[in-house]
């Protein structure tokens, strides 16, 4: 009897072993790697930026804007990344306000010395200098001074005053008034732009320079400063983006998403900069003025703006979101054919508009109808499937995943510029999702091998995730983590 029962018992035991051991097999090299909070960073993963160099991809991850003056950088070169950051902190004085739009700088010339893989984290005080705070992969911390008060108009507050006020309010644990936005071009020596809606102020740093050139508010000599809120809109400076033009120069976009007065349609003002100068003057000579205005015809147009090269060709694209829909514009076309001078009535779409992208629900992902203003805040361009063409990655932290509220997801779109069609390729979610994770609050792309991997932050969870695999990945493009 027992001899007969023994094989059965052994089979049962072995089978049982496989029942649980197979979970261990699954757990080996999961396709998604969680990068946990290095410690003490509130809302870790809210924002991020990447710089790709020859040695790998440098990733900056920050916490909640204007709350946690800490961040972490990672250097990721393969599919088995170290989960500990290369560097963290970046604010030894504690007088820092890391913003919601850190800018990635391929190379930063400081005192004539190039520094690779740098990031602009936000604003603050470093070495008694108020300005944009930067950090390079070589450990260099630097500050870009922001415009101070105009000597001709000493009573008018400047961006430097706003930083000072914010730092003071931060120490008093009061509501901040700043919300500085920073953007940079994607070229090796980038043009840096910044803005704050508090003053309706916008300025930029020409490539290889650290001197801010004020775009607003400006005034002709002897004249009072023009009020940007009256000219450009109540929220001028709410968002900024820089696009490099194929024929040279840059197109600098500054958004006023809430309109002017009773006219609540959002606007995006476009400045063309060539060789460090604004090529369009206003009514007064040598007074910089936008080359054109891109009317949105809807509220919040321009609430989020990003730039990048999504399509083949030399031209970059400008991504303008109204919080629900992302409109993709060709930067060269916008430069060649300015849509409007004063946003007073030229039809939208006639110039530079390629297509629009909306939130798409799937069997697992829902909640697009609840999106109000976050769609487009997190945006990255990546070749997730290794086919050589780029896909648009949009993080939507408020989406529900498999019934889990606000678990968040990153949506990967294929955008066809010819047919002007968009198609959702895949969604990036995490299996360990939980309510309020907010995955997709930030997204970025990292080059690993022959393809890009998607990185998405989940500040609700306090970590970010690297998605190494793609369901659309072709043979030879997947990493060892992919089945």
């Amino acid at each position, binding site marked *: 009897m027992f001899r007969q029962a023994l094989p059965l018992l052994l089979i049962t035991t072995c089978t049982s072993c496989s029942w649980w051991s197979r*979970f261990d097999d699954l757990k080996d090299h999961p396709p998604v790697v969680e990068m946990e909070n290095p410690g003490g960073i509130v809302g870790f993963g809210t924002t991020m930026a990447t710089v790709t160099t020859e040695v790998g991809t440098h990733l900056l991850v920050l916490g909640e804007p204007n709350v946690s003056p800490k961040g972490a950088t990672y250097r990721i070169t393969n599919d088995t990344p170290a989960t500990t950051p290369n560097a963290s902190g970046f604010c030894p004085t504690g007088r820092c306000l890391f913003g919601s739009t850190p800018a990635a700088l391929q190379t930063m010339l400081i005192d004539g010395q190039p520094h690779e893989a740098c990031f602009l984290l936000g604003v603050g005080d470093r070495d008694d200098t108020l300005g944009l705070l930067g950090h390079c992969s070589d450990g260099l911390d630097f500050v870009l001074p922001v415009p101070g008060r105009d000597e001709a108009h000493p009573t008018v507050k400047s961006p430097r005053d706003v930083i000072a006020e914010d730092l003071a309010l931060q120490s008093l644990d009061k509501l901040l008034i700043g919300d500085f936005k920073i953007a940079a071009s994607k070229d090796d020596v980038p043009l840096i732009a910044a803005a704050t809606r508090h003053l309706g102020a916008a300025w930029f740093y020409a490539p290889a320079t650290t001197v801010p050139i004020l775009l607003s508010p400006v005034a002709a000599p002897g004249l009072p400063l023009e009020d940007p809120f009256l000219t450009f809109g109540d929220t001028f400076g709410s968002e900024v983006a820089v696009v490099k033009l194929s024929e040279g120069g840059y197109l600098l976009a500054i958004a006023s998403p809430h309109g002017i007065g009773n006219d609540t349609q959002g606007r995006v003002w476009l400045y063309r900069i060539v060789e460090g100068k604004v090529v369009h003057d206003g009514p007064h000579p040598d007074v910089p003025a936008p080359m054109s205005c891109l009317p949105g015809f809807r509220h919040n147009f321009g609430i989020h703006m990003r730039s990048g090269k999504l399509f083949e060709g030399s031209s970059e694209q400008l991504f303008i979101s109204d919080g629900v829909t992302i409109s993709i514009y060709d930067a060269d076309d916008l430069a060649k054919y300015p849509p409007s001078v004063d946003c007073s009535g030229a039809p939208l779409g006639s110039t530079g508009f390629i297509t629009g992208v909306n939130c798409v629900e799937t069997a697992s992902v829902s909640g697009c109808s609840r999106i109000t203003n976050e769609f487009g805040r997190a945006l990255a361009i990546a070749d997730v499937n290794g086919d050589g063409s780029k896909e648009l990655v949009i993080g939507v932290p408020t989406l529900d995943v498999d019934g889990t509220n606000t678990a968040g997801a990153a949506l990967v779109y294929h955008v066809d510029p010819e047919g002007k069609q968009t198609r959702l390729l895949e969604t990036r979610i995490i299996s360990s999702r939980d309510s309020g994770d907010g995955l997709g609050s930030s997204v970025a792309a990292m080059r690993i091998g022959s393809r890009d991997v998607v990185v998405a932050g989940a500040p609700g969870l306090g970590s970010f995730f690297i998605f190494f695999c793609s369901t659309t990945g072709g043979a030879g493009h997947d990493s060892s983590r992919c089945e």
Partner: protein
Amino acid sequence: MTRTPILPWLVAACSVMVALMLEPRVGVAQTASQPTSLDAAKKQMERGQELYMQQKYEEAAAAFAAAYTIQPYGAFLYNEGVCHQKIGNNDKALAIFRKYLAADPGAPDAEQVRHRIQRLEQATQPLDADAGPVDADSPSSIVEEAGPDLMKSLVMIESEPPSAPVSVYYRTVPSASPFQYGQDNPGWQRVATGQTPFHASLQLGRYHIVLEPFADFQKSETDIDVAEGHVHQFKANLQQGEFLAFLRVTTPMPGARIYVDDPPPHKKPPWGRTPHEGLIGVGDHTIWIVKNGFETASRAFSVKHGEEREELVELIRGSKGTLHISGNASPIHVSVDGIPVGTFHPNSAITIELPAGKHEITATADDRKDLVGQVDVPRGQVVPIDLVMVPTTPRGAAWTQAIVSAVFVGGGIALKVQSDIVYDDIHTAKTNGSLTESDERYTKGKIYAYGSAACFGVGGTLALLSTYNFIKDPTPSSAIRVGVPHDYPDSDTAPPRLSAPRSPAPAGKTAPRTTSPVAPPALAIVPSYPWQGVGLMLQGRF
């Protein structure tokens, strides 16, 4: 048939009064035959009497002693004692009289002899030594009145056939009327009774001897005058009824009932049971020999007056036998050769007549193992069988284990399914590229897997245990215990054919035993399987 009385005394072989004077030590060698020794004793008796009359008491005592040596009759001792008393040898006389009483305590004159012994003992007292010889002439009874020094006579009575009852009456009043059998007969006193052959020591006088009627023999009687110191020998050939013959019926198997001239159905009590003999009337007769379990045999014959006929009747056993079925359970449904024959209850054994030969017995009872067996029914005999219905092995534990096993296996399957679902989910997530290391489903799936494995393990173990408990059967099969075949009980009724189950015995009455009456006592330790558990039970039958 009427029987006519014939002569009461066919042969009075001898009414011999023989007085023999024998030498004291004569007759030692008379061993060839009883008549020879008796004759010798008689001679010694008569010689002693003669010497006594010649007052040669010492020689007379020796002669009587010699007679006693030849034939140990009490009369010889008594006479010897009297002789010793005559010559004053009281001690010797006392010893002789005591021996006389010891040899025949119920002698007719036992009381007189005890009285004589008392007087002799008084005479031999030292204080009374001067009182002289004891006066022996103070009789208090009839015998003593005849004189203490009279010699007694030996009366011997025989009959053909022997064993006839004998009564001896003594005429106490010389003028009494002759003895009338069946009357009061005043002046006569019965002094001795017995069966032939009969002997008694009697004193001088008139006696009436009656051989009482017995069996088919008529009474016989006669008067005798007993002389002093003689041996009186009588023999009576008793006469039976007139026109009778003698019949003896025997069978190899004793106890068969004999019916004479009473054809079936027999209305009279049987004449007797074999072996049996007796007188029957002359003429033609038919006898039926009946014994349970045997074919009835009959014989027809004719007998003549005085004929002795012997019939040896061979009995042939019947072609059927009887099963007496009992059992140890209640009720037991019994079938023989596939045909239901009844239900056994403790107070209602089944008795069934069957053709001799092998028969298949099938029995079923609640909670007992079915029984199938074969019994060889003998010809003309009763074979008791005891259906030993062994309780079925309880399967409660096996069922419980099976159910629990099924529950565990079901739980294992459910958990395995859940584990598979979780695994599939995780695998899908991994395929989709959304799987993270911190996914809680790893633990969840593992717990399901552990749970399912544990359930399968426990369920499988219980299933094996349940299977084993379903299969195992430690108790023996139900069986038939066959008793020793025996003949039908002797009774005047026919053998039982089929006893239907009877209703239970009324309260207060003892129920008959349920086991076979021939089953030997047994004591055994058997496994017991009550629902509470398993144990051993001491079981005995006595």
